[in-house]
């Protein structure tokens, strides 16, 4: 190591005087960092607890919240279990959730292993395609499946003609579980695939040196290492299928199969005189179950992080060669993508351009734009499209900022309640959209000045924002974990306070994660609708609620048209955002 010095260095003056340490103003002994931390904590607590408290309160009250002079009683719970048919609902929900979870894993785990760890024809392309059903809302996926596989679906009719009978019944718990599993598989896939990518390659090399063949390595080394992401994603999928509304609503309503979410929907929205006590009690029970599962999940994840080890120097091992079997594997993945997501969506898009969509008549003869005409002639429908875009755009910015602050406080601050901030940000994941809707509806109804918000887009943004907060938090948190803590420490010792550290150092480093969260929240909020069922007025519907209205009216063509528009908006947004991201990461 040679040290080159310029001339001036040889007669360097005596050691410089020490610069004074920076001083930061305090309010009641708390620096601005502490104030921000408390602010975030209190804001999150209000945000998350607001919809829960009135539900809890209502569940023990003998009359609606807005009627004065109520008594506290457990009567709602006894009525719920004795005469509301709730037992059957619980059973249905359990079957549906367990079925969905199992099917999701059956789809996701083998595919993750095949795509990430084996030589697969077109492996990269298949891996990317595996993830795209995530961008489609399950409501649209459900419409697509009905269009193809429903009792009068395009494919069902052809199969019935060919076989003389239809070997499946989409309008059943099984049909719901399959559809839901196709929609949720990308989530489990991403968890498993990431774990596989991060796992230490030398473990496999060690097995290979010991003389193990590809299949033995797969089953003795690779798959057992997947246990943590499997446990984690199965709990996640389980809790998501507990709260999902779309598929059970579309498939279950005609045949009167009720699960948790549809029970709330019919009792709260469709009945002429809703029994608010029952609604509150049922919501409370459901919340208890879903929050319970998320609590388990948090515990599992805490332990799981010990297993998933990221090693900087991990070398990519050779991919395992499965021989001829790889073609079978590739075909299986193609079948999932094509029949699970691609065909239903294409079918729906195609449906939007036809009068009637059935193999019995050549659909090309009935090509039309009238489905779109109908959407665009009614101002309310057009409004719902702009509403969706406004809600998603404004919400994405607000939620991402809140999530960023929450991540900073939870993961990068000495804040006393840092853990609580993290839990608060993640709890909404366990709050079914419809319950969030009911909760905020009551909040706005009871809160002084709430009338100004009730029924406006602000209410919708608040409710959707709460629902997508965990998504944003979850997408920023890993990014901050990759930024070494010493970078903060170095800034602190250099004289930056907690807040200055964020503004001077972390802000730039977190920009990609923040943009990533923006995109993700936008997509999530575009898909969201269940919380709006209670909160929207006539002028503040979103695409999802309008689609449901049109579906109930039997305007399936217009539903398909709206679905196509929503997919197009999402696709254009994601494409533009990705281009923007690419342009920036090159710089």
């Amino acid at each position: 190591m040679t040290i080159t010095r310029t001339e001036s260095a040889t007669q360097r003056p005596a050691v410089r005087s020490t610069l004074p340490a920076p001083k930061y103003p305090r309010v009641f002994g708390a620096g601005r960092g502490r104030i921000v931390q408390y602010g975030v904590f209190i804001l999150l607590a209000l945000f998350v607890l607001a919809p829960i408290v009135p539900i809890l309160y209502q569940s023990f009250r003998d009359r609606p919240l807005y009627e004065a002079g109520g008594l506290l009683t457990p009567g709602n719970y006894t009525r719920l279990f004795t005469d509301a048919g709730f037992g059957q609902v619980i059973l249905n929900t359990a079957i549906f959730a367990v079925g969905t979870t199992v099917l999701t894993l059956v789809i996701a785990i083998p595919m993750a292993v095949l795509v990430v760890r084996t030589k697969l024809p077109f492996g990269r392309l298949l891996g990317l395609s595996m993830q795209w059903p995530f961008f489609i809302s399950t409501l649209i996926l459900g419409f697509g499946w009905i269009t193809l596989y429903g009792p009068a679906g395009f494919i069902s009719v052809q199969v019935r003609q060919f076989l003389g009978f239809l070997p499946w019944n989409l309008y059943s718990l099984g049909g719901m579980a399959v559809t839901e599993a196709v929609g949720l598989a990308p989530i489990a896939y991403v968890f498993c695939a990431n774990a596989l990518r991060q796992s230490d390659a030398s473990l496999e090399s060690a097995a290979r040196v010991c003389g193990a063949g590809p299949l033995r390595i797969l089953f003795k080394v690779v798959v057992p290492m997947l246990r943590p992401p499997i446990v984690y994603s199965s709990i996640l999928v389980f809790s998501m299928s507990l709260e999902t509304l779309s598929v059970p609503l579309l498939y279950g309503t005609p045949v009167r199969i009720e699960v948790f979410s549809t029970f709330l929907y019919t009792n709260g929205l469709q009945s002429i005189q809703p029994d608010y006590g029952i609604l509150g009690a049922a919501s409370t029970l459901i919340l208890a179950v879903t929050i319970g599962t998320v609590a388990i999940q948090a515990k599992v994840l805490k332990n799981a992080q010990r297993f998933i080890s990221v090693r900087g120097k991990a070398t990519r091992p050779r991919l395992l060669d499965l021989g001829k079997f790889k073609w079978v594997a590739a075909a299986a993945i193609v079948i999932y993508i094509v029949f699970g997501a691609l065909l239903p969506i294409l079918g729906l898009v195609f449906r939007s351009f036809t009068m009637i969509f059935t193999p019995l008549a050549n659909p090309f003869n009935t090509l039309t734009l009238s489905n779109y005409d109908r959407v665009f002639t009614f101002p309310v429908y057009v409004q719902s499209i702009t509403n969706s875009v406004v809600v998603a755009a404004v919400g994405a910015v607000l939620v991402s900022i809140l999530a960023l602050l929450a991540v900073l406080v939870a993961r990068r601050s000495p804040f006393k309640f840092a853990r609580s901030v993290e839990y608060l940000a993640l709890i909404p994941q366990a709050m079914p959209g419809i319950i969030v809707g009911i909760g905020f509806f009551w909040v706005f109804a009871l809160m002084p000045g709430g009338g100004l918000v009730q029924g406006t887009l602000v209410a919708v943004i608040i409710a959707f924002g709460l629902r997508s907060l965990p998504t944003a938090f979850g997408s920023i948190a890993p990014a901050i974990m990759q930024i070494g803590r010493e970078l903060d420490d170095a800034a602190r010792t250099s004289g930056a306070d907690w807040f200055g550290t964020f503004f001077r150092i972390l802000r730039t480093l977190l920009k990609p994660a923040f943009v990533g969260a923006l995109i993700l929240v936008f997509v999530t909020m575009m898909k969201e609708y269940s919380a709006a069922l209670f909160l929207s007025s006539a002028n503040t519907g979103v695409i999802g609620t309008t689609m449901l209205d049109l579906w109930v009216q039997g305007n399936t063509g217009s539903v398909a048209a709206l679905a196509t528009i929503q997919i197009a908006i999402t696709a254009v947004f994601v494409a533009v955002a990705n281009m923007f991201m690419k342009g920036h990461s090159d710089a």
Partner: protein
Amino acid sequence: MPEVHVSGLHKKFGDVTVLDNINFTIKEGEFFTLLGPSGCGKSTTLNSIAGLETPTSGSITVGGVPFVDTEKKLYMPTEERNLGMVFQSYALWPHMTVEQNLVMPLAIRKVSKEEKASRIHEALDTVGLAHLKDRFPHQLSGGQQQRVALARALVYSPSVLLLDEPLSNLDAKLREQSRAWLKRLQVELGITTVYVTHDQDEALSLSDRIAVMFEGKMTQIGTPAEIYEKPATAAVAAFVGSCNFFTGALEQISGGTAHVRLDNTGLVVKVASTLDLKPGDAVTVAVRPERLRITPSANAAGANVLETTVLTRSYVGSRYEYGLKLGSNVVQVVSPDGNLDGGVRLVFEPEDALLYAGASVPSAEAQELMTVAA
């Protein structure tokens, strides 16, 4: 250049005590090293001075300014302590050039533009990297990154320099040279420096004084020579340099010389000691390999002469390392003579050995590796 006082420092994580009553004072301009195995609490101590960890109790004062005093509920945040710190991973901000990295602390202190430029030039000049100021950290070698980190810590002339294993990420050869360079720099600047390392060579060669820590406790504070020559415990002797340990029982002690019957051979050796022990007490005799002499001749003269056989001989450059069999123990000896074999005699004087109370071999695992069938 201020003094650093640390007194009564405790740190607990839940039920685990990481720091147990740490006390020391660092003099002005001193190079003070916290040495110990990983997990001993040395980094926690350093981070407590920096304010990156909050001690459970105790006080820290630098240059008369109290940083922490748990009794008075006083805690000065890191950013107001005006310390310079170099991290093990260097912690250079990856999105900023070398110059921008150095500007940050100056910008926070609202330094004028001219002074910024001159201070940055001076700091980079000190570490010999003025020509690389427009590079990004990832465009620099590990050694250069380490020097930029040092320049960033020095650019605002902090009161105390804290170094957390700054050399441990360099390769062996560069590490040695960096060590010498760092020593020259510190002498030149005369800045009070607290250095954390687990590398005893670094500690011995760099420090004015060393504090050796084990399991959250400070075991010994002293100059490098004191630490090496007069280790306070068997653990210190084992950690700093290498050492042979023999357990035994005290036969008698008088006039500063103890007679110890060794467990491995049943022979009695004489060891200089002023410990207050009774005959029959269990003791441990420690001898550094370079203090032992080996001789082939049958009539070797010395206070302690032990019959041994050569197990292994390895050439390590300037000298030979021997493994000798003494009872069930393997004894490590260093000798310039490369021709010894078979039966040899091991000779040492009472002053060459150290005596510790109790049968305290520092590491059961190390002792196991040094045991053969008798």
